[in-house]
């Protein structure tokens, strides 16, 4: 209930609450990062400036450990990111000092919790430049957000013969819900294949858009190919035929500036746990008039207006799509993550990652028999800071196991929730090393050395 006016002491952000209320001393890490924001974001360290990765390292205690006798080198941020102390503090702080159910209560604690929860919503809105915080619906994660659109918007808007355009490189979460809904509605799924640069073929996508198209659902940055799609243009083409666009921004929101007004997308989804926030929370951005036209997804408390025995009336968005008690602490911690990232500055993070990602690509491709998927980096093509790859004649799982066991290097092997893409590329599985702004040049060097050792170990047995 946003209209309720309360006289409360003001708690501008979660970080300051933490420091005011905590008796135990934690590194005031996020504040130090803010003050050092002017330092260089380059990956190399010299006497003058320290690289971003080195600077923030102390905020992430989890990175300072040994696994299997070697220093941990965490290169799996595309699967989930690590969380800075400020985010953990915010979560702890919530439970320790003002945990209470939101929206319904009158008492002090519940008002405080509600305030912080709604503040987190505003922070997320600001982070992606949504025009109104009511365009942010909190969900469990991006997958649930896509399902929300599929079941709520999809079931009531798709008719037999309508077309939904996807790419073969989509994550399963942006394929399966559409399969389910198209089965129920008789809509047809169409898939854009890759071109010779190993990116989805934009020309083909453009050609595929027709008056029959009702939705285009695509990734912003691919979690396997590291390529990005020109969302602004795609939105223009789609809107020309009256189609909507859903953007899966899981690999873009954490790593670069994403401006939903500039993109003009109708829907956008992201997960908190990939952007330094906790698991269990994500969000759907939806244009206001669109959300208002959509029926509920899940039913229950919070999303209703009046409830009778035989029918109910529903609340306005975003509440309409937030049934039941939300992940309050998690949302607030996500807000703290947004603060943390904003404190560093997304442009700075992006700049750092472009450079470090390019370094990774160069070192990796210099190893013999390594095949990296996706486009080559160039002046015009900026890859995301990850490399999915295969080594000729070796299975990625063997590589990942040995890297972990003998070198403490954490990468991922498998299909990365993109089976159709792997089938298209003609492989069963691939290995993937993914970076985030807390990785350093030394991490990449350790990885390359370890990989070379691993490859030679296995090759000696062939």
């Amino acid at each position, binding site marked *: 209930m946003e209209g309720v006016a309360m006289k409360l002491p003001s708690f501008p952000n979660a970080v300051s609450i933490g420091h005011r209320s905590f008796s135990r001393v934690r590194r005031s890490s996020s504040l130090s990062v803010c003050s050092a924001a002017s330092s260089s974001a380059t990956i190399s360290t010299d006497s003058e400036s320290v690289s971003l990765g080195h600077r923030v390292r102390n905020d992430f205690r989890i990175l300072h450990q*040994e696994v299997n006798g070697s220093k941990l080198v965490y290169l799996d941020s595309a699967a989930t990111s690590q969380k800075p102390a400020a985010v953990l503090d915010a979560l702890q702080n919530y439970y320790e000092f003002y945990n209470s159910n939101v929206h319904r209560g009158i008492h002090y604690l519940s008002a405080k919790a509600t305030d912080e929860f709604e503040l987190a919503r505003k922070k997320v809105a600001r982070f992606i430049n949504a025009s109104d915080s009511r365009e942010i619906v909190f969900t469990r994660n991006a997958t649930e957000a896509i399902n929300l659109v599929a079941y709520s918007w999809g079931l009531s808007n798709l008719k037999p013969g309508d077309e939904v355009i996807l790419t073969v490189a989509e994550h399963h979460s942006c394929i399966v819900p559409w399969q389910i809904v198209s089965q129920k509605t008789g809509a047809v799924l169409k898939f854009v294949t890759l071109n010779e640069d190993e990116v989805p073929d934009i020309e083909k996508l453009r050609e595929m858009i027709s008056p029959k198209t009702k939705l285009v659902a695509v990734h912003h940055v691919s979690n396997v190919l590291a390529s990005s799609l020109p969302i602004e243009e795609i939105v223009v083409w789609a809107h020309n035929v009256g189609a909507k666009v859903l953007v899966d921004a899981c690999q873009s929101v954490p790593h670069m500036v994403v401006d939903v007004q500039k993109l003009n997308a109708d829907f956008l989804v992201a997960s908190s746990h990939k952007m330094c926030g906790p698991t269990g929370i994500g969000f759907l951005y939806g244009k206001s008039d669109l959300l208002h036209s959509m029926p509920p997804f899940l039913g229950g408390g919070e999303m209703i207006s009046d409830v009778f025995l035989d029918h109910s009336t529903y609340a306005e968005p975003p509440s309409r799509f937030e049934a039941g008690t939300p992940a309050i602490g998690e949302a607030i911690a996500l807000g703290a993550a947004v603060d943390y990232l904003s404190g560093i500055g997304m442009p700075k993070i992006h700049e750092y990652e472009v450079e470090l990602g390019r370094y990774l690509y160069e070192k990796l491709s210099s190893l013999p028999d390594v095949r990296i998927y996706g486009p080559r980096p160039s002046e015009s093509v900026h890859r995301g800071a990850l490399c999915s790859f295969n080594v000729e004649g070796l*299975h990625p799982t063997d590589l990942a*196991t040995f890297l972990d066991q003998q070198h403490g290097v954490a990468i*991922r092997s498998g299909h990365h929730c993109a089976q159709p893409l792997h089938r298209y590329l003609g492989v*069963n599985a691939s290995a993937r090393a993914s970076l985030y702004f807390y990785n350093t040049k030394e991490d990449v060097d350790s990885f390359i050395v370890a990989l070379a050792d691993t490859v030679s170990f296995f090759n000696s047995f062939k």
Partner: protein
Amino acid sequence: MAAAMSSSCCASSLRLIPFKRTLFSSIHYPSKTLTLRPLKPSEIPSFRRTIITFQKISTGIVPPPSASSSPSSSGDLQPIEELPPKLQEIVKLFQSVQEPKAKYEQLLFYGKNLKPLDSQFKTRENKVEGCVSQVWVRAFFDEQRNVVYEADSDSLLTKGLAALLVQGLSGRPVPEILRISPDFALLLGLQQSLTPSRSNGFLNMLKLMQKKALHLEVKGVEDSTSESSFVSTPEIKDEASVPEVDSESKPGLVEDLGTEKIDDSDSGSNGVALGSRGMRIRERLEKELNPVELEVEDVSYQHAGHAAVRGSAGDDGETHFNLRIVSDAFQGKSLVKRHRLIYDLLQEELKSGLHALSIVAKTPAEV
């Protein structure tokens, strides 16, 4: 729940081996010890459908690589002497190799020497489920009706594991193979060196090999024309063979044979009430065979020590049954055909965790 073990390779770190489907949520330890976050099911990179729970290990006690074959933590592990001789050798070899890297080398060495599998055998039925990499296993009888295995994989480590099993199990008779409990994998000391998804693949490999051995046996029974064919496995008994079979046969069955146990009522239970599977079996047999007498006895408890029971039942451990059926439906059918008939009727159960049946099948005239 999980205990901290220091082993030679992980000095002060704690390894959680999440074998259960419901993986551990975060567990807090005193600040010194470091925890590895268990993998979330969604993160485990595999095309996996099932997770085998390795319930003995989930107590959290993991013996260090130097553990002897009878570690104190696992009093009810299958004793190593019960394993086929070659498998015993392999286990002892791995136990003598302490360093993880050397264990890998040993494993890869086995894999290298594995006879490659002809591509015609790389079929869906031969594929092991639950492996991140692709693994195929093939089984056939040699002249002495011992099972011979062949296997292959696209991953070197998995190939090594497959080679282990092929070497350890090939050339052995079906009953011996079926008796093997997957506990021995613990003894290898490879558990700690392999990720949970991979070691589940290992369990699945073993399971598939045992299943194939069973199929060979059943098919062999089918194909044989003589009624007095000797089918001696601990799981499948028919009347002709019971007197000659090994001493593992349950006393109740031997009784069944010689005398006519008509005293029991149709409830057929020995104090063990029938669970849902038992009821389903009873229903099905009643419906399809119209028996004059029907006894369905749940003897799963007699196999409670058999790890495959715990792992595979999926429901409440209803895995072993004694059946005594007197029905006109058996008229004119050979023993083999009668058993086949019953198996066919209980296909669903066999697929979903029913492990074995002991069958007495008579016509009313024979009783």
